[in-house]
């Protein structure tokens, strides 16, 4: 029995050591790769110098590139990847359905719509209200858009107090189409200065990272990550069914509410800053479940780290493949993710895991 406990803990530790290792590796590669190649040794020197650990002569250009361009973008990418992966895992657990992802139930497009409306309407007609608060207005409205779209999707799909997954997905598709249509109209009337291209909202863009944006993204994402990870145990019970979870002592409605609000918060904020990046929320939790375990105490934190890894990995390609231009990040996440996902699907089907 003691041995068994150790084994369980060993497996848990192993998955996190492995994922954190991958993440660290990707962080160093990502900082080094680009128009200006910087070796891992130089990266270490620059950080050591910057943090005052020891004085060593470093290349000023490299230091500038790292601290002004690559590091903020890297942290930005990491936070957004973590938000998407973790929210995907939470929502899949909550709806007991491996098909659910933040995009499917309308959070992403609702958030994009909210953000676009702020930029279009407020900026055009009430620029004085915006002022310095502009940085905050966009995430707040993105959150409102995301949560309204989610609540509408849920209300449409509820029947006799229960959420039917077929209706949920259909309602989500409907909400997404509606929001996309309105986004389309908004973009049609927008001038270039107001909106970036359609690509920004539909395929995402990570090149917009700045330290200022991180000051908003970081606290919101951290809060959501902490709250969602706490839900792991009740989500395990909900995976058996809502009635079963209630009988086991889970406050089901409360857990549902908190899970939806904080998933919507994390995803909406990500969308407000980087547009809609699909696929991470769907595929990462699956990869984690198939590689490690379906226990949410592992799946939730591991999906956050895994989401960060996938997005950093994808971003390395997005900004180097056609340099100095950039490929839309959403294209890369789909290109990398889909073949791997199909491979996992085929093997999982053989093992009857799905």
């Amino acid at each position, binding site marked *: 029995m003691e041995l068994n406990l150790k084994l369980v803990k060993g497996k848990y530790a192993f998955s996190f050591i492995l994922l954190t290792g991958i993440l660290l590796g990707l962080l160093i590669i990502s900082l080094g790769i680009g128009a200006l190649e910087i070796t891992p040794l130089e990266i270490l020197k620059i950080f050591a110098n910057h943090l005052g650990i020891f004085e060593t002569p470093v290349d000023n250009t490299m230091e500038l590139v790292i601290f002004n361009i690559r590091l903020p973008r890297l942290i930005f990418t990491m936070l957004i990847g973590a938000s998407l992966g973790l929210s995907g895992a939470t929502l899949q657990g909550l709806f007991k359905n491996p098909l659910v992802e933040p995009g499917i139930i309308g959070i992403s497009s609702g958030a994009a719509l909210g953000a676009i409306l702020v930029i279009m309407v407020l900026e055009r007609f009430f620029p004085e209200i915006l002022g310095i608060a502009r940085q905050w207005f966009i995430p707040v409205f993105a959150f409102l858009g995301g949560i309204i779209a989610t609540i509408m999707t849920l209300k449409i799909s509820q029947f006799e107090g229960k959420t039917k997954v077929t209706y949920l997905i259909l309602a989500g598709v409907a909400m997404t189409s509606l929001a996309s249509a309105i986004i389309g109209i908004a973009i049609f009337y927008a001038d270039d200065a107001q909106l970036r291209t359609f690509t920004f909202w539909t395929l995402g863009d990570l090149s917009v990272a700045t330290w200022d944006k991180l000051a908003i993204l970081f606290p919101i994402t951290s809060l959501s990550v902490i709250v969602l990870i706490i839900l792991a145990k009740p989500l395990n019970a909900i995976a*058996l069914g809502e*009635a*079963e979870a209630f009988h*086991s002592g889970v406050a089901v409605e409360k857990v549902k509410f908190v899970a939806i609000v904080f998933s919507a918060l994390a995803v909406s904020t990500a969308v407000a800053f980087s547009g809609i990046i699909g696929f991470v929320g769907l595929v990462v939790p699956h990869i984690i479940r198939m590689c490690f375990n379906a226990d949410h105490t592992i799946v939730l934190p591991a999906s956050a780290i895994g989401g960060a890894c996938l997005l950093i990995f994808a971003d390395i390609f997005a900004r180097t493949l056609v340099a100095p231009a950039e490929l839309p990040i959403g294209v890369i996440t789909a290109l990398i993710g889909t073949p791997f996902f199909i491979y996992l699907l085929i093997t999982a089907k053989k093992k009857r895991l799905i």
Partner: protein
Amino acid sequence: MIIAKDISKKIGKSVILKDCNLRVKPGCFTAVVGPNGAGKSSLMKILSGEIASYSGSIRINGKNIHHYKSKELSALRAVLPQHTIVNFPFTVEQVIEIGRYAHQTTTATNQKIIEEVLRLTGLTDFKNRLYQTLSGGEKQRVQMARVMTQIHDFSPEPKYLFLDEPTSSLDLAQQQSLLGLAKSLTQKNVGVLAILHDLNLATQFADEMLFLKKGETIAVGKAEVVIKQDIIEETFNHPVRIINDNGQKIIIPDSGIQNKSENLNAITYGHIN
């Protein structure tokens, strides 16, 4: 003891339950029987706290059900559903572990309880198998292990186990083994309440029985007292015979085949004539 007093429930104008009185005693297997739509499931949902809108009162171990927090209630009573679908690759042990959610016990204690329940249910060799790859009968045994884990405790307080048509997807041997497990719990100060479709399973395992029909109580009491031809016929609107096999009563519903063949003969003769 669970004492349910004058439980009534209406949805719109239709009566789901009317003045139902029931006692679920620790150490006793109580079966609820009745045709579809009799209100059996509603009664169980009310007793488990799942349905909160009804009239009447429920006391569990002397305390009103509303005064329990949901975790306290879950440490006292567990519910085994008809069948449970799990869409994620959980192992058997992970599913069973969910039974400890409401308890504040240490991981080591939980592990000990799980090992004990695995042994009792004969699932020790299954604990690392994936739940999704099990057969229907095996899955139900895992769920049984989960609910046993939930009410496994070291306190002297009586615990309760509710079974909602637990045998509907099981074969003959599996039905006997599952209800046998439930029956064995009655020796550990557990009160069992089971909705059963099969009257013969009910007569075989139940100490007490409640007959429900359209929300009304037809009979309630000791099994040997209430298993009577007229009660069963009134409850199910169908003629039955009861035969006694070495003290166990066996209920045989009238199949009507006799009549049908007579009708068939009449039709055939009619045709010839």
